Structures are given as C-alpha cells and as structure tokens.
C-alpha cells in the first residue's frame, strides 16, 4: 500500500515539476532548467514523451520474453502475461506517437515527416496491430498462444533494426540522431543535474506504474480464464 502512495506522490511531483519549472539561460536555483539550443521550451516533453516510448519498447520486450517462456513450458499463464504486456504496450505506443507528433508540430513544423524515429514507432504500432489481428483470428486457446508467440518472437528479432539501428545511422530531425549537432546527446551533457534527476524520476515512476498495471492486467486475465472454466464445469 505504501509504495502505491509513494508512486502517486512521485508521479504528482514529476508532472508538476516537469510542467511548471522554468527554463532559463543560466540555471542557478535548484528548480531551474537549462536552455538547450534547438529544443528551447519544447524540451519539457522529454519528461512525458520519452517514458512512454521507453515503456513501448519494454512492453514489446516483455511480450517477446513471455512468448519465449510459453513456447518452452506451454503454460497458458505466460500467454496471459504477454497479452497483458502487449495491451499496455499498444496504449503507450499510441501515446508516444501522439505526444511525439504534437511536439513535432511545434518543433519541426509538421505533425508527421517520416523522420527515422517516427518510422520506427510507426513500425512498432503496425506490429502491435498485426499481433492483435492474428490473435483475434484464432479460436483455439493453445493454437492462438503458440502462433502469436512465434509471431512476437519473429517481430522481436527484426524490429531492433528500427528501434536501435536505423534512427542512429540515418540523418534525421529527432534529437539524438546521427547528424544532430545542436541538440546532441541530450541526456548526457545538455541537461543539468536537476533536469536529469526529474527525467530519471519520471522514467522510474512510469516504469513502476507500468509494472503495476501489467500485474493487474495479467492477474485479471488469469482469474477470468479460471472463472470461465469453473462455470463451464458446472453448467
């Protein structure tokens, strides 16, 4: 119970701090953020956009891990876990796409410009969509679990091309891409220490939130299956 209150306070602090702390040229006080050339006031999105994109990848990773576990042990609980992870993953993927597009409107002038990062998040969105389409087309539980696990693993080994290689080698507009001179590696030396602190607090807070939601998700899925089976046995 205590950690839930702690998480609530943490996320409240991160949201308030991320939105309201001012950006100044020469940060002196502990609550002031530095002025990053090329990002300016838009830099504040880092506290909310980066955690959603990070959780999209984490969810995708966990879907693949539990798919792998399912293929080894054939335990349907693992399938429920990977399904719950993917459900959250697609929500965070949509959030990352939308917040990124809104930010791009102000920073780059258009909502969508096929930047390598945008391509990669779009590919993830497509994979999640295809995965759910595959699941909904199969009736039998075991068959659905096996085939969707196989698909998740195939997608997981090809998609690193997008998330990790293409955005870093291709020239793009996104902070952190190959030819980025003015915004550079943002996290390392453009942010000052308190901006980094709030960024990592936000990352931690959202990650805890994700795992909490994931636990609730898979538990409710497993209980629902159990109840359905008992009802079938009785009726």
């Amino acid at each position, binding site marked *: 119970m205590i950690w839930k209150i702690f998480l609530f306070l943490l996320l409240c602090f991160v949201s308030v701090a991320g939105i309201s702390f001012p950006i100044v040229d020469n940060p002196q006080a502990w609550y002031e953020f530095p002025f990053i050339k090329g990002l300016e006031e838009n830099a504040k999105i880092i506290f909310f956009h980066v955690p959603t994109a990070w959780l999209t990848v984490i969810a995708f990773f966990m879907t693949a891990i539990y798919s792998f576990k399912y293929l080894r042990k054939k335990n349907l609980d693992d399938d429920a876990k990977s399904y719950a992870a993917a459900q959250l993953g697609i929500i965070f993927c949509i959030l990352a796409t939308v917040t990124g597009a809104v930010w791009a409107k102000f920073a780059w002038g258009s909502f969508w410009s096929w930047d390598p990062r945008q391509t990669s998040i779009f590919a993830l969105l*497509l994979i999640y969509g*295809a995965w759910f*389409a*595959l699941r909904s087309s199969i009736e039998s539980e075991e*068959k659905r679990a096996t*085939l969707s696990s196989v698909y998740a693993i195939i997608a997981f080994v090809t998609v690193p*091309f997008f998330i990790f290689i*293409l955005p870093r080698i291709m020239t793009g507009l996104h902070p952190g891409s190959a030819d980025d001179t003015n915004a550079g590696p943002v996290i390392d030396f453009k942010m000052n220490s308190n901006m980094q602190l709030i960024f990592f607090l936000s990352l931690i807070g959202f990650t805890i939130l994700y795992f909490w939601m994931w636990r609730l998700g898979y538990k409710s899925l497993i209980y629902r299956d159990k109840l359905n089976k008992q009802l079938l046995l009785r009726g």
Partner: protein
Amino acid sequence: MSKSYSLFKKDLHSELRTRYAINSLAMFIIVTLSVILFSIGNETISQSLTGGLFWVVIFFTSMSGLSRVFVSEEERGTSLTLQLIAAPSTVFSGKLLFNLILVFAMNTVIAILYSALFEAFIIKNFGLFIVSFILGNIGLAFASTIIAAIISKAGAKGTLYPVLSFPILLPLILTSVQLTLFSIDGTSFETAQFELAIVVCYDVIILTVSYLLFDFIWKE
C-alpha cells in the same frame, strides 16, 4: 536434403498442373502495373519515385501468391501426412526452396516489365542493382515463407497475410528502396555497403529464427 528436394519437386509438379500461384501472380503483376500506369496518366514521374513504386509492385505481388505453399497443404488436408513422413526442418526447406524460385521468377518478370514500361527507371550502377535485388529477393522469400506457415494455421488467411508480413518486411523494403535509389543514382558499392550489410543481416536473422520457430508452428 534429398527429402526436401523431393518435397520441392512435388510442389513444383502440383503447381505446374494447377498453375494456381503462377496465374494469380502473373495477373497480379499486370493489374498492379496497370493501376500505377493509369494513375500516372500523362504525367512524367521522377526517377526516385520509380524506385519506390518498383518495390510497391513487388510487395503486393508477393502478398498475392507466396502464401500458397502452406495454405494449399491445409486446404487439401495433406499437412498431417507431411508431418508423418518428414521432419519439420525438411518440410520448411522444401517450401523455402519453392518460394525462392517463385520469388526470383516473379521479380525478374516484374523488373523486365517495369524497366520496359517506365522510361524514368534507368539504372546507372547495374552491379549494385543486381546484388541488392538478389539479397532483397532472398529476404522476401524467407520472411514470406515463415509468415505463410503462421497464417496457414489461422483463420481469415487472405487478409491476414499482408497485415502480418508488412511490419516484418518493413526493414527489408526500406533498405531495398534505398539501394534501388542508389543504383539509379549510380552510387558506388563503397557508399552502399552499410545498406547491403543491413540486408545481409536481415536475411541471416530471419532464416535462423524461421528454422528455430518452424517446429512450433508445424506441430500446432
């Protein structure tokens, strides 16, 4: 290996008898090309656009016919017999060989027709185009075969195939489009070596993971 070759020969014979995949692929090539030609009309399209459209034709054509190898086994109800007489990797090798031949035949026809119909499609570095074309075709055949195996066990096979294949093929298609543009521009091999390396990596990864995971699909 000889078993998978005889499986390939069996597929080839049944294909030559019914000509199901060949006919639908040939018609699909004509339909896609004519849709593009109609939509262009009298406009002249730029060189860079022809490189992208080339892969559009290849993608949609392969989505129309490459799922046949596994779907036909399920429809005829012969997959259980195959499971009895051959190991999963043998079946997969046979089907992969068949799809490879099909992809190469299909894409060669597309390339010839395409360069005849589109005047802007002039390739300056022919060697680079051939290498990227071969590597791209191999990757296309590998990925489409394993996805075909998945959808042959699922419902709504026809619509699901492009939906499932597109995200998996996206890294391959993006780099292949880039390589085709390079060969249109006449870029040297040194400049394009990174993109070539990506396609080679993709081919190796998808082949390995297909062989590892095919057992699970096939036994389902």
